[in-house]
């Protein structure tokens, strides 16, 4: 399955996790996500997600001025963001376990149907 499709539901979680580890500016966060294995993540998706999390109060942001280049906007996690991260981590683990169970143990159901037929 296409990773971008899967990412849609969990990009918030991934971004929060990365920012919790260390404050970062947009592309820095993209890079860390890619290094972490989400090779296909689009930078615009990440920037948009950062903006949405910021608007929701999960992230804080500050601008680091630069003398010769453009200013960088750094993001850090807020207490509300930590809460959200903890909650979504739990949800994800439960979801992943459920799905794992579904993927690894389909045999009995198939067998039962086969038997009844």
């Amino acid at each position, binding site marked *: 399955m296409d990773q971008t499709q899967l990412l849609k539901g969990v990009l918030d979680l991934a971004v929060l996790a990365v920012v919790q580890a260390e404050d970062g500016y947009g*592309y820095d966060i993209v890079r860390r996500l890619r290094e972490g294995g989400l090779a296909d993540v689009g*930078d615009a*998706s990440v920037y948009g997600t950062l903006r949405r999390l*910021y608007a929701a109060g999960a992230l804080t942001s500050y601008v680091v001025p630069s003398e010769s280049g453009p200013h*960088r906007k750094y993001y850090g996690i807020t207490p509300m963001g930590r809460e959200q991260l903890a909650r979504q981590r739990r949800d994800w683990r439960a979801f992943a376990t459920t799905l794992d169970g579904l993927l690894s143990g389909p045999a009995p159901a198939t067998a039962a149907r086969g038997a009844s037929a």
Partner: protein
Amino acid sequence: MNTTELPVRPDVTAFVARVRELLADLPEEDRLELTEGLEADLTDQVSERGGGALGDPEAYARELRAAAGLDPAPRRRPQGQRSTSLAEQPDAVRDRWATMVSRPTIATVWTVLVALRPAWWAVRAWAAAVLLAVFVPGWYDYGFVWLPGVHPVAGLLILLACLAGSALVGLGKVWPGGRRGTPARMVLLVLNVAAVVALPVINGQLDQQSWSRFSQGYNEAQAGAGARGVMNGGQEVCNIAAYDAAGQPLVGVQLFDQAGRQLDVRCYDQVALKVPWMLGDVTRWNVYPLGERDRPARSERRRQDLTGAALPTPDRATTPAVTNPLVPVEAEARPSGTTDRDRGERDSRRGDVSRR
């Protein structure tokens, strides 16, 4: 790592500017929030992966919006779903146009243009009035006051009526203005396009007319002021009235200049307006006064008809008896006070010419 001191590449600047434009419909705060620091991020990205990393700004803006949970770009139909129905087509075009002019760079200009909309109503009213004026009886393509070719009062009335109509349509108070129905919108579109097309045509014809009139006048002036003809006090001499020293009018005076050349008096339309003297069957134009027609005769056949032609008498010439020391006195010893007789003679002369 000193990543804060990267200069911004021009392609990055352009890309970010385009993305900002595509987000122009968002509140300024959202837009700023969404694109702040974008230059820095993209500069990093480009320095790491090359200019190809930028990609399509429209797709980029869409992704940015979607991820930020903002409305997807409004007022724009997806390309695949373009409507071909006549009823929806105007909306589609209008939407695309609205999106285009909502860019910050164009928006200011567009605002001014929208404010000038009544001026367009006036202009198209004028176009309509000119087209109407053609149907007014007695229209001729000459003269330009309110409308070319009609009486100024009629022209003003037509123009006012068209102005009122155009403004009412523009304000949506009169059909087909302001209606949502497809026929009304189509009619309005056709009318506006027709006005746009008609304007340069009308303008071109007026230009041409005024140019041809100008050049005609110029040529006439050139002809008058040029090598030909005789000038008197800045005006061209068209005819000469000769009197003798006693104030008696002379007929058939042949005039020559100091070099013995025939005095060549010529005005515009001289041949058509004057009856020249003849030497056998050769015309002589230096014999005065020249007969004058009341109507120009521009063909040989017309010139045969001498109805209304006469030898002229100048309106305001006073003809006192005069002397010159070189002329013997007895020549001027004629009775004065001959004005009444003069008049009589002239009139009879006119009759002679008419009867010819």
